[in-house]
């Protein structure tokens, strides 16, 4: 009896792993690295012109070679005849990875409590498996700045590449301390404050910002002098913006705020980048004169004032560029960062021009972030962040065929695509039989 039972159990156990395997259908396609030769494409390098019948060799995560007649050797060859190769697109301002479902508070991790929290690290809370990351990267947006928001100094933004299983694997080599510049204007129709109160509030907010900055300055001075300082993580982080060790990303939109931000920046050692800059076109010359680079957007956005031209937001980037401002673009999105190329197209059509619009989502953000040696164009030696498409990726009709991030070939799939595959021809359809 015992023997029979033992034998039975043993045979059951032996069957278990087999049974578990047998219940899984299909294959999961993972991102994979290796040596790839993207053959015979039209390569839009962005910085070195457009090269026809050109191949790109990808090796060790980098663009090893761009040219004609590259021998494949042991590389996997991907025929790109009739296709175009672009550098991976860079979104200069998102909340990608910091939120899953925006109305569900438990999944929203971009806004911490407190007014001065520069030590909050966006990179820490990036969820590498956020559904929106898979949805975004097949569009050819390979790299984004992900930005915390909330108080005056809400945290530290981080650049991430949209491939990897840990935040460190995704980290793109750029961080900036965020400042939401105090707003002096009337914030929309529901702002019922009197003109006087608005003025008082903005003066108070600016004074507060100055006090905090002075504290950080003192902190830095003491620290540099070798003083033993109390644990003060907020000041420790903010002092890095004071010294210029980390850039200061100032989010500012209304014209008068941009002007006071320009004034505020004067005489400080901080490396400043403006973000948002919705009314930049009103004070474009002043921004240009101050030499502050700008990450503007969203482009597909309403004008800020009822009296503005309908295309104020579309034309903003072009007007600033014309005035001599270095312009990059952002979507300020979480789930629809994939629309970055379309924001760029609108900016192009309303004054920025196609070439500058492409630069505004490739080489310009790379330059502004100080990482142009690695990002923003198709050149040998740079990171292999590449988009292969049937045409201009800023055109809705173009199809993105392949995406490479850090030399990894990205599977062209995500939940949106899988749902399409399942439901295009549902089975059963209307009737069961």
């Amino acid at each position, binding site marked *: 009896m015992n023997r029979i039972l033992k034998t039975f159990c043993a045979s059951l156990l032996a069957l278990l792993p087999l049974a578990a395997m047998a219940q899984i259908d299909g294959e999961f396609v993972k991102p994979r690295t290796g040596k790839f030769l993207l053959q015979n494409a039209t390569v839009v390098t962005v910085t070195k012109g457009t090269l026809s019948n050109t191949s790109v060799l990808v090796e060790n995560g980098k663009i090893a070679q761009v040219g004609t007649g590259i021998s494949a050797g042991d590389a996997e060859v991907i025929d790109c005849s009739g296709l175009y190769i672009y550098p991976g697109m860079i979104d200069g301002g998102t909340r990608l990875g910091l939120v*899953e*479902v*925006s*109305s*569900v*508070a438990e999944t*929203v991790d971009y806004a911490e409590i407190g007014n001065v929290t520069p030590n909050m690290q966006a990179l820490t809370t990036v969820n590498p498996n956020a*559904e*929106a990351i898979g949805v975004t990267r097949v569009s050819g947006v390979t790299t984004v700045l992900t930005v915390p928001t909330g108080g005056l100094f809400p945290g530290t933004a981080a650049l991430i590449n949209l491939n990897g299983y840990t935040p460190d694997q995704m980290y793109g080599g750029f961080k900036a301390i965020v400042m939401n510049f105090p707003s002096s*204007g*009337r*914030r*929309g*129709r*529901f*702002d019922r404050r009197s*003109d006087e109160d*608005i003025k008082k509030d903005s003066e108070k907010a600016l004074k507060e910002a100055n006090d905090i900055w002075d504290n950080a300055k003192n902190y830095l001075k003491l620290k540099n002098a070798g003083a033993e300082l109390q644990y003060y993580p907020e000041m420790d982080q903010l002092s890095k913006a004071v010294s210029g060790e980390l850039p200061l990303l100032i989010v500012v*939109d*209304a014209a008068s705020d941009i002007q006071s931000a320009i004034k505020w920046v004067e005489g400080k050692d901080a490396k400043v980048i403006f973000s*948002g800059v*919705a*009314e930049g076109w009103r004070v474009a010359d002043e921004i240009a004169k101050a030499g502050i680079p700008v990450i503007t957007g969203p482009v*597909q*956005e*309403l*004008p*800020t*004032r*009822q*009296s503005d*031209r*309908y*295309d104020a937001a579309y034309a903003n980037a072009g007007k600033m560029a014309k005035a001599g401002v270095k312009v990059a673009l952002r979507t*300020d999105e*979480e*789930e*629809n960062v994939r*629309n970055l190329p*379309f924001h760029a*197209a609108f900016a*192009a*059509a*309303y004054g920025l021009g196609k070439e500058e619009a492409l630069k505004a989502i490739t080489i310009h953000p790379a330059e502004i972030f100080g990482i142009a040696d690695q990002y923003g164009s198709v050149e040998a030696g740079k990171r292999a962040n590449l988009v292969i498409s049937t045409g201009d990726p*800023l*055109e*809705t*009709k*173009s*199809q993105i065929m392949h995406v490479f991030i850090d030399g990894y070939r990205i599977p062209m799939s995500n*939940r*949106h*695509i899988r*749902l*399409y595959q399942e*439901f*295009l021809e*549902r089975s059963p*359809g*209307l009737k069961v039989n």
Partner: protein
Amino acid sequence: MKKLNFILAALLGMGLNYSQAQTPKGNLLIKNATVLTVTKGNLENTDVLVQDGLIKQVGKNLSAPSGVETVDASGKYLMPGIIDAHSHVALDVVNEASAPIVAEVRMKDMVNPYEIGLYRALAGGVTISHAMHGSANVVGGQNATLKHRWGSDDPADIIMQDAPRTIKFALGENPTRVHGRGNNIQPRTRMGVEAILRNGFNEALQYKKGWETYNAAKGQKGNTLAPPVFNDRLQTLADILDGKIIIHCHSYRADEIYMLINVAKDFGITKLVFQHTNEGFKVAPEIAEYTMGASVFADWWAYKMEVYYSTAFNAAILQRNGVITSINSDSAELIRHLYHEAAKTQRYGGLSDDEALAMITINPAKQLGIADKVGSIEVGKQADLVIFEGHPLSSYAVPQMTFVDGVKYFDIKSDSDDQRQLVSATEMVEPVYLHAEEDHQCLQGVEEYFHAFMGTFMQDHTH
């Protein structure tokens, strides 16, 4: 005396035609355009003649009758005016959130002809929008179909008087949040939503029967029946049962869509359009078989739980399953580039140019019951037209001129800095609207119902 009668009759006639006669009708010849008719193919180097606000002729080498303005559209594209089947532009109030059924309220009483959003929509080629009640109630108010006759100060001129009645329904998170979680009354769940619908329609059937009984007995000898008490709410539901009103139902999840299809079947309702319909792709065969289709976002998802399992391929899947599909905005921003939103069906699902364009013209026209009047460039239809620089489905396209009834309401060449019709005299400092504060109005005006448990997170996405 006879003469007086004649004058009185003439005056009476004028009175009846008042709202029709008020709106201007244009005469116009558009020359040498690439005409995207949507229903009859694309015509190169073609002219369109407009007379009295209607399309009189489409062909080559047409000449303008004397005194009729000619617009040279060489190298440009001409398409039908874009129709947005889901908008809240030009509405002063969006939600009457006080009860799960508010069928008696009417958006036509809320139309604000001064709203700059109308002009901005025209600048995006949109000539007609479906100004909808919000989504706070299972049965919301009656919507208004607007023609963007910018510049009039009479709301009646902005309303498309010859469009049929439509009404807003809403399923899922919004009505359950406002009433169940906000007010602690049914519905708190999607089960409750179904119950509200069935209770409402059954009550309306009884109400209808009461009137039928009364009307049948009215002429009879010895009849002592008093008339039932008039109830606008139940009368409107009865009108839905009689097929006099098209339902436009805010919906997201497949289960709730399927539920309403079943309720509609049980009550013999066939005039039903789903709005948003993010999970419509899961029940596409059912939507195709039993309804007038679905009006969807091109790519919105993940802003709340019930749209988390969405796909940007929704419109393409619906289209391939035979659903009449339109792309809408529900946004004062998106309404300005619906041509671009429609083009996303080419990125996500590879639809043809005609299929994509139909989603913002003839398909929404069908869903609003106005396809015999607008939605394509055909002789006899109302001359709502847009001239584009670049193909409208290109992301570089720029609308140049927009006409309603043959009258030009937008011209990029004469667009000036301040297009407002009305400027507030008390407004010293013009407010700066950042990140579309005016946008996303589906739940506008219901914040107080859920401040207690939603905090600030409702400020962002409230569709």
